[in-house]
């Protein structure tokens, strides 16, 4: 084996670093959207590789739905302190109040759709011209069509039919005033790639990714954490189970999986054996219609 060979994770890392630096080189006011999940934690790790010993040429931005797992918020604050970068938090709660938005009703009332309003507001407030996100093309079929640099109009809308061709490693980040770009450095990573990278680089994650005891409610085959954000009915049966999270979104729209995997190796073994996709198993919000993700993206969602 020649020493001038890159294995697939080094390859993916190099590609992601290149995309980060293209954003830094092409835009005046970028931001990194940070959710506290494993993908955005990986993004932060890659940004360190891209810019250290310099500072990040962008702040981290967290759109706080108010429905977060407390473990994810604690982790976020600890990470930001450790790396010494700037964090901007904007609360969906405040947007709901100031814009008089109507919240979803029902048992698992989610603020997933409403966070788009807060995101567009924060883009306007700071004049961000590029937002870096941790979306992956393997997550969902609409995302499989997404560019690395995805141009959004002033309403944040994605127009899948008017996407710019993207050739070689050349990214066209030129935009008109009011438009912005969503940039996706880990587009070509799969869920398994992320976990293998986390393992190789020994990246720390919030505890909820590992097996723990939790009170859950079984709903249409999915396990939803019992929290103050869920409206329990008297007939609901709450049980205590050994679970972990494959994705970390809001407590209202992320489901847990039963698991005893308490370390990265066990998780990787489980993912290789799994027969259900990441979003299919754990996202309550994607099940609404075939084109649920496409529709949300058209409205400014990631």
């Amino acid at each position, binding site marked *: 084996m020649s020493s001038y060979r890159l294995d697939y994770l080094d390859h993916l890392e190099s590609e992601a670093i290149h995309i980060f630096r293209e954003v830094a080189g092409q835009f005046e006011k970028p931001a990194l959207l940070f959710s506290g999940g494993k993908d955005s934690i990986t993004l932060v790790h890659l940004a360190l590789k891209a810019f250290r010993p310099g500072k990040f040429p962008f702040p981290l931005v967290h759109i706080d739905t108010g429905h977060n797992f407390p473990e994810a918020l604690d982790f976020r604050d600890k990470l930001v302190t450790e790396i010494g970068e700037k964090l901007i938090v904007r609360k969906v709660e405040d947007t709901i109040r100031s814009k008089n938005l109507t919240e979803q009703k029902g048992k698992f009332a989610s603020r997933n759709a409403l966070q788009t309003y807060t995101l567009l507001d924060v883009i306007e407030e700071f004049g961000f011209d590029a937002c870096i996100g941790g979306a992956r093309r393997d997550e969902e079929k609409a995302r499989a*069509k997404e560019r690395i640099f995805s141009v959004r109009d002033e309403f944040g809308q994605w127009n899948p039919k008017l996407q*710019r061709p993207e050739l070689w490693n050349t990214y066209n980040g030129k935009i008109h005033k009011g438009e912005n770009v969503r940039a996706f450095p880990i587009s070509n990573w799969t869920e398994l790639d992320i976990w293998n990278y986390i393992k190789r680089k020994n990246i720390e994650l919030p505890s909820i990714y590992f097996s723990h005891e939790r009170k859950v409610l079984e709903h249409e085959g999915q396990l939803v954490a019992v929290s103050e954000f869920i409206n329990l009915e008297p007939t609901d049966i709450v049980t205590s189970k050994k679970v972990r999270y494959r994705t970390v979104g809001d407590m209202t729209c992320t489901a847990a999986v039963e698991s005893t995997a308490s370390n990265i190796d066990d998780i990787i073994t489980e993912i290789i054996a799994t027969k259900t996709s990441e979003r299919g198993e754990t996202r309550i919000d994607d099940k609404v219609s075939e084109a649920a993700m496409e529709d949300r993206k058209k409205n400014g969602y990631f």
Partner: protein
Amino acid sequence: MDILRFITAGSVDDGKSTLIGRLLFDSKSILIDQLAAIEKQTRNRQDGEIDLALLTDGLRAEREQGITIDVAYKYFSTPKRKFIIADAPGHIQYTRNMVTGASNADLAIILVDARNGVVEQTRRHSIIASLLNIPHIVIAVNKMDLVGYSQDVYNNILIDYAEVAKSLGLKDVIYIPISAINGDNIVDTSTNFPWYEGESLLHILENIEVYNDINLDDPRFPVQYVIRPQREDLHDYRGYAGKIASGIYKTGDKVVILPSEITSTISAIEVSGQEVQEAFAPQSAILHLADDVDISRGDVIVNQNNLPQLSNELEVFICWMDHKPLQAGNKYFFQVNSRVVRCVVKEIKYKLDVNTLQKLDAPDKAGLNDIVNATIKTASPIPFDSYKKLRTNGGAILIDETSLLTAGACMIQDAITD
């Protein structure tokens, strides 16, 4: 484990989506909920069997119309390799999508319907693969079940295609008979082809050597970003960040910065936060130079003993990608890696017939999906290599100055010398 990026060329009629579906399905990359979603959609459409094409058609409009509009990226892996499939539509009105998908593919699978043999579309896909310089071509003769797994039919197609390959100068062409719908020769070799001595398609994809396609001979380092910590303890730190497009860089190398032609020496190299003695393509790296010189984004750092061409007049092939036609005399932004300059398209020399490779009379305009040979003058010199020699330093995009859309893809052929 490494990565193979490949493109599949062909239309739904050739069984392209079935082939991709088959690769994903047989390599167990389709998961239960995705399959359930397809079954549900198939029921919605009330037309019988599970349609594996629904896996690749991601947009509502595509599913409704039963066509692929845009390039979709699909992923699967085996213990040997991670695969990235660029699934692009095959019809002539989608030439730009195939060009996009082909631009960073290591390999193209060109599907030939065994019943029809080498047709116009086969030639077009081969011409695009050759123009975009895809290193490896697999000619997959599909639907062999419909011709009784006939060796004669297969051999005749091979003879016909050998002519195409010869006329295009395609170097590495591999032939394989398959039936995507039955899974013959996809993951395992099939007993339906006792006369076929090669390996299965997946075996070919897993084992084809792509490492040799990375150029390690001609060091090219486009600077993306300058890292200056502006901290007391790192007062003198100045790192040039970029991704090595080709070649190897070592500390002590004598380098030239282009286009300024300033010389210096590499004093240190960092890769992934570690100081190293050497770095190679396609690593992202930070280079440090011994001298305090003026370098910014868009400059290219090369070795003094191995210079690219430097010119502001270029002969290029352009694949036009915009609805607004290309007109000689129009100005655009010209972007090669991180370098963006203004340019004017001086003259359209001829249009290429993408079905026959014939040179057609010079049109005054080029439309969407046209491929033309043209001359370009840039506002400042471009350090480049011919696209045939070095894909990573010979490809450029044209950006419309007012709409800011990516309007064309340029394959630089040569500098124009008077």
